[in-house]
């Protein structure tokens, strides 16, 4: 219900509001105005107050949210394999469900997935909703969205988590928009405000320069995509027996407009950068493209992947998929070695959450040294060969 509200801290007690009210709906009590029941929301007092101490509170449509119960996680599968992020979702999902005192359910869509669904029973959850149908073999936006939306409307979960993968980030916003509910992307932190039963979602913005805490207080389900490799994975070996509930999707015809024609697997010598535990990156300080051989050598010795700054990608020294940074990839390896990279903010946002950062740059004022765990002010052309040589010796011994 809309209400006129007095902001007590701003009120000066001047009583201008009283004289402005045509309905005598304001009374002073202990030097503070009180709005009486015969107020008809005309707003004259708001205009009259010189201290902006009176506001009209917006109408809050309170849908009955109490009928929404339970935490769901989307169990992502590709080519009939359950994706690693699913286990991370099971981990954080369990914690959230416990705090809410509710059930944790997994939602698995695919074809020939009964076996995988049964494997998931080994994890700590209460239910698995399974849609097993040839139509759902591969992810298709329209099909998956419709199936999930139907299920949500039927079962009314309170929280839905998906992985912030290319699939999750294609699916979640479609589902959230169709459900007209709130969705927060790429969360790195999730917890429950037990009093309000709100999911508190923490996520980076502005390329990681700021963190935002977000809630969807008046809409259910509360949806979030979760950044992979941040949450702890759930462990199997749980004695509790969950149940698999198989759903027959109402979609009988494949009315998905977008059709998959083929898959292209390109020869990428760099393994998925985002999955790498060690990354060695090269920047302008390398001097010329040929010097990437030093980077590759070091990466090989350490069993790591090769990364690059934007400058050298733009100069065509190396392919774009090696680029780390704001318009490239965001990585969280255990070890990130930045060679000849000055560390402008656009690069930093792509790698600053790495566990250990080693920076090698001959410019002592390079910004990269502000975030490096170990900074080495040296010419990389002198430093790297020695590092490589010693690592080679070490490997042999």
């Amino acid at each position, binding site marked *: 219900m809309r209400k006129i509200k007095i902001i007590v801290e701003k009120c000066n007690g001047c009583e201008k509001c009283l004289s402005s009210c045509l309905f005598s709906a304001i009374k002073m009590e202990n030097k503070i105005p009180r709005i009486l029941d015969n107020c008809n929301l005309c707003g004259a007092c708001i205009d009259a107050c010189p201290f902006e101490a009176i506001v009209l509170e917006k109408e809050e449509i309170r849908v009955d949210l109490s009928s929404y119960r339970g935490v769901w996680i989307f169990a992502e599968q590709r080519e009939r394999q359950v994706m690693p992020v699913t286990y991370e979702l099971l981990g954080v999902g369990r914690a959230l469900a416990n705090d809410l005192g509710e059930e944790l359910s997994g939602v698995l869509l695919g074809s020939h997935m009964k076996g995988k669904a049964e494997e998931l029973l080994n994890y700590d959850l209460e239910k698995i909703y399974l849609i097993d149908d040839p139509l759902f073999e591969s992810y298709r936006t329209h099909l998956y969205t419709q199936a999930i939306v139907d299920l949500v409307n039927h079962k009314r979960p309170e929280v839905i988590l998906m992985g912030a993968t290319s699939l999750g980030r294609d699916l979640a916003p479609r589902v959230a928009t169709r459900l007209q509910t709130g969705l*927060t992307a790429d969360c790195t932190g999730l917890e429950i405000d037990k009093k309000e039963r709100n999911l508190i979602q923490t996520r980076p913005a*502005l*390329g990681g320069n700021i963190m*935002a805490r977000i809630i*969807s207080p008046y809409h259910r389900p509360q949806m979030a995509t979760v950044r992979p490799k941040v949450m702890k994975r759930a462990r199997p070996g749980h004695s509790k027996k969950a149940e698999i509930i198989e759903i027959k999707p109402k979609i009988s015809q494949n009315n998905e407009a977008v059709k998959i*024609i083929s*898959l292209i697997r390109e020869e990428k010598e760099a393994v998925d950068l985002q999955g790498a535990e060690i990354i060695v990156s090269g920047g302008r300080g390398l001097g010329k493209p040929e010097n990437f051989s030093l980077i590759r050598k070091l990466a090989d010795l350490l069993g790591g992947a090769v990364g690059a700054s934007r400058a050298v990608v733009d100069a065509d020294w190396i392919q774009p998929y090696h680029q780390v940074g704001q318009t490239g990839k965001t990585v969280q390896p255990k070890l990130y070695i930045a060679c000849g990279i000055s560390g402008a903010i*656009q690069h930093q946002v792509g790698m600053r959450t790495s566990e250990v950062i080693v920076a090698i740059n001959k410019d002592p004022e390079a910004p990269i040294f502000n*975030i490096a765990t170990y900074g080495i002010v040296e010419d990389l052309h002198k430093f790297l060969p020695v590092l490589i040589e010693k690592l080679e010796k070490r490997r042999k011994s």
Partner: protein
Amino acid sequence: MNIIVCIKQVPDTEQLQKVKVDPQTNTLVREGVPGIINPFDENAIEEALRLKEKKGGKVTVLSMGPSQAAESLRKALAMGVDEAVLLSDRLFAGSDTLATSYTLAMAIKRIEPFDLILLGKQAIDGDTAQVGPGLAEWLNLPQITYARKIEVNEDKIRVERALEDVFEVVESPLPVVVTVTKDINEPRYPSLRGLIRAKAEQISIWTAEDLPLDKRRIGLEGSPTQVVKVFIPKPPRKGDILSGEISQVVDKLILEIEKRSIIQ
């Protein structure tokens, strides 16, 4: 081909010394900070221009933002787009992705007809990547995300999508909403002619009154998600500078990585 490109003006992070947050709405204060076209949206504009060069037609660029966003629209005009529309109204302020995609969708309904809608995959300030799919949903259109290559033949579009470890080739009839990655092209610089022409061109400015909107679905009111707090994350602790003779430094470094069990 009639193509609509939705773009966003974002803060130029190179110029960003300190982030300003509006205490009332908990959203970013965009005024006063120099803005640039969201880099991925530049790729979208470039792709639209290339398709127009091949197939003929018109490119309209659309943006929702404060009046300052007109600068970015002007740059798009300088690059060669035909028309620019700015959706600017106090009522749009504080929109989350649901409200934003709704507002853009209602504006697009006014711009109809169109064959293709292009957007960058995400904005580098919000980083949500949600507006593209949301827009497709409001307009009841198919969506294709993470495009790294687009081909249009007659009334069908073929797109190569960049997934984590594989590229998926898909096909769809038009119209469709496509979000693009950086790999799709190299955005052109505006020419001098373009700059001069754009300076004189008209940008249409539409307010909430100009669109067939349900006012409850826009701005703060139309946003299910609320930002309750914004904070600067603790910067990673500044570490040590290892100095000394190169050979010694290398030894020390290897020792440290071993200590942390990163290598055996």
